[in-house]
């Protein structure tokens, strides 16, 4: 293999993980973690300049470039946030240096696994990468070793593994469908070959395969009713991991699903995957929106909001068509940025207040103005109010699907409104209510949070034409 950006994208996190596993001092390793994430981001951006040649195992095309850059960008900003977050955790003794060493090594392993899943051209390799990503996050969710963290990690491990097992069964079935046409061996698992020849595949077998893939990877996307692991995993793990889970890992699973959807679309007689995705998306939106009202843990609340937004995105991709796909992509990008910004804020808030219970947090805009207003801005963005970016992407999704399926779109809008009510109800208390809990000043790094929010605001006001052109191009690919 020649050395190019593609190799570097995978190699940097691996090398960093190996070094971080050996470094005892947490300040040095936090800095190295940040540096490695920065290099990965730079490498990912260079993919737009020089496109490496795709092979049997690795692939770079317009679709995954968007995902890779988003992943490495949020991975980088999260590593900045993580540095200050972890410092505080060590100070208060919630984590020991040994665990932090493990945490940093796992962080880079996770980045590697996600990058691999995104660039994999071989559906078997993609599966392996998603599996590795799952296992690393399981280990990180359980890192606090509290009752709740162990339960969350166990639940995530069992449900995630079952999901991943079903996805493997689906992958094997895709191979079985491809084998009579392409022949035995590696070629029948190469995605580019599969898409090119999918028209001749046996549609019935492909249908069954897609059901398994949807259930399998859908579990990882967090679609209701397969979402049970998600709120626990978000609430009990370290907050940087909540940000990465919501902002990135859910996207990676969604990306795997989209790749298989493209194979399905290329096969004439197969069922349209769209309606299945639309139904699961809508169920997730309504369910998660209703669940927002009874949450008592702030991280758990935003985890349900992630389920809601993944539902909206899956709905958009399920409806399909150039405009809905464009809106789905935009929404996915903005959701990643906004939700991780919210988790950055929430992470520091939980550290200042010493609790995640909503009942014990109040009046943040008075006690910690910067954090409080950051959270307010994040929530205003996530519920989809103008002029922030998510308003635009949600508006695009609704307007592009309303003409085709007015009733389904009405359900979607209802879900979005219910979620808005739920989030504002809590925000009102948390941000503007009576000041409650500890009121020490926060030692926070605000840069990652406000960078994300500024990007989201900018997207709502002005989308650069280059970005629009790139996204429309990808939207056309998705069919």
């Amino acid at each position, binding site marked *: 293999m020649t050395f190019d950006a593609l190799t570097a994208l995978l190699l940097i996190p691996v090398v960093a993980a190996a070094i971080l596993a050996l470094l005892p001092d947490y300040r040095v390793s936090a800095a190295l973690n940040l540096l490695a994430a920065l290099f990965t981001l730079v490498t990912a951006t260079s993919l737009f300049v020089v496109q490496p040649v795709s092979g049997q195992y690795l692939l770079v095309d317009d679709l995954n470039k968007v995902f890779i850059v988003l992943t490495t960008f949020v991975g980088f900003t999260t590593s900045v946030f993580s540095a200050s977050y972890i410092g505080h955790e060590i100070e208060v003794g919630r984590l020991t240096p040994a665990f932090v060493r493990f945490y940093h090594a796992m962080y880079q392993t996770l980045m590697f696994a996600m990058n691999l899943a995104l660039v994999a051209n*071989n559906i*078997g*390799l993609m*599966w*392996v990468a998603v*599996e590795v990503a799952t*296992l690393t996050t*399981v*280990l990180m969710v*359980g890192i606090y*070793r509290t*009752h*709740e963290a*162990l*339960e969350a*990690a*166990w639940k995530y*491990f*069992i449900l995630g*593994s*079952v999901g*991943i*097992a*079903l996805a*493997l*069964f689906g*992958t*094997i*079935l895709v*191979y*079985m469908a491809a*084998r*009579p046409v392409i*022949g*035995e*061996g*590696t070629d*029948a*698992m190469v995605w580019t070959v599969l898409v090119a020849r999918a028209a001749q595949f*046996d549609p*019935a*077998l492909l*249908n*069954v395969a897609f059901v398994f893939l949807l259930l399998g990877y859908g579990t990882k996307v967090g679609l209701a009713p397969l979402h049970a692991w998600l709120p*626990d995993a978000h*609430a*009990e793990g370290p907050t940087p991991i909540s940000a990465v889970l919501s902002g990135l890992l859910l996207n990676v699973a969604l990306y795997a699903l989209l790749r298989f959807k493209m194979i399905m679309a290329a096969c004439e007689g197969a069922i349209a995957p769209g309606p299945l995705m639309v139904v699961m998306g809508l169920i997730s939106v309504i369910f998660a929106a209703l669940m927002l009202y009874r*949450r*008592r*843990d702030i991280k*758990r609340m935003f985890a349900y909001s992630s389920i809601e937004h993944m539902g909206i995105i899956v709905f958009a991709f399920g409806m399909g068509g150039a405009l809905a796909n464009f809106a789905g992509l935009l929404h996915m990008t903005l959701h990643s940025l906004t939700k991780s910004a919210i988790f950055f804020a929430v992470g520091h808030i939980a550290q200042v207040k010493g609790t995640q*219970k909503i009942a014990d947090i109040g009046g943040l805009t008075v006690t910690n103005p910067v954090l409080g207003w950051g959270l307010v801005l994040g929530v205003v963005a996530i519920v989809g109010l103008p002029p922030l970016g998510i308003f635009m992407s949600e508006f695009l999704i609704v307007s592009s699907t309303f003409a085709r399926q007015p009733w389904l779109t009405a359900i979607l809008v209802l879900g979005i409104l219910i979620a808005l009510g739920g989030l504002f109800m809590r925000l009102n208390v948390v941000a503007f209510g009576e000041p409650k809990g500890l009121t020490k000043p926060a030692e926070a790094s605000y840069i990652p949070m406000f960078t994300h929010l500024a990007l989201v605001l900018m997207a709502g006001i002005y989308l650069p034409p280059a970005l629009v052109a790139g996204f429309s191009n990808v939207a056309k690919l998705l069919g």
Partner: protein
Amino acid sequence: MHGLEFDVAHLLAGSLVLASFMLLYQDRLYALLNVYALHAFVLALSVAWQAFVQHAPHLYITASIALIFKAIVIPVALHRIIVKLGIHREIETALSVGLTMIGGIGLVALSMVVMLRVTPGADALAREDLAFALSVVLLGLLIMVTRRNAVSQVVGFMSLENGLVLAATAAKGMPLVVEISVAFSVLIAFIVIGIFLFRIRERFDSVDIGALDRFRGESGYDV
């Protein structure tokens, strides 16, 4: 693909489904682990036979992984863990045996109907193996949902992965990457599980998952 070759492959894959049924009704952990060892042993035989029939030497590696790792190392290690935890005498009462068995039969029927209907084009051996494999996967899921004990859930999950290996070997010519990764995942999974079982024990003095539920952040009665 006729005569003896087909019959033996059929017999072995069928035995794997049978072993899954045997897992379903074991209520003692020791017995459960022994049957799991048998399950993995049958899988090893089945994979070895496929290697022989398909002239695919790399499948012998998969077979030996199944034999050494899944049929011997994991059951022995789990034996030791449950003795250490002092739960080897525990009797588990989940759903009634009759109900679970009927559910299991329903799942096997379902997988036969689904797989045989959608694969008329494939060769007979592959399609029957695939149907059996799906049965084993679904039975593994059934074991996982009917058990409350962490160790038995893990056994259910491992039997499910055995079903996946059967499917992967039935898919003729599938590259080795998948078999290795499956074995690999079991390995990591096992390490993770081992750590977790000890940790759960440490915290709760029990590996009953029911004990975990009480610590849910939001269960309403625990604040």
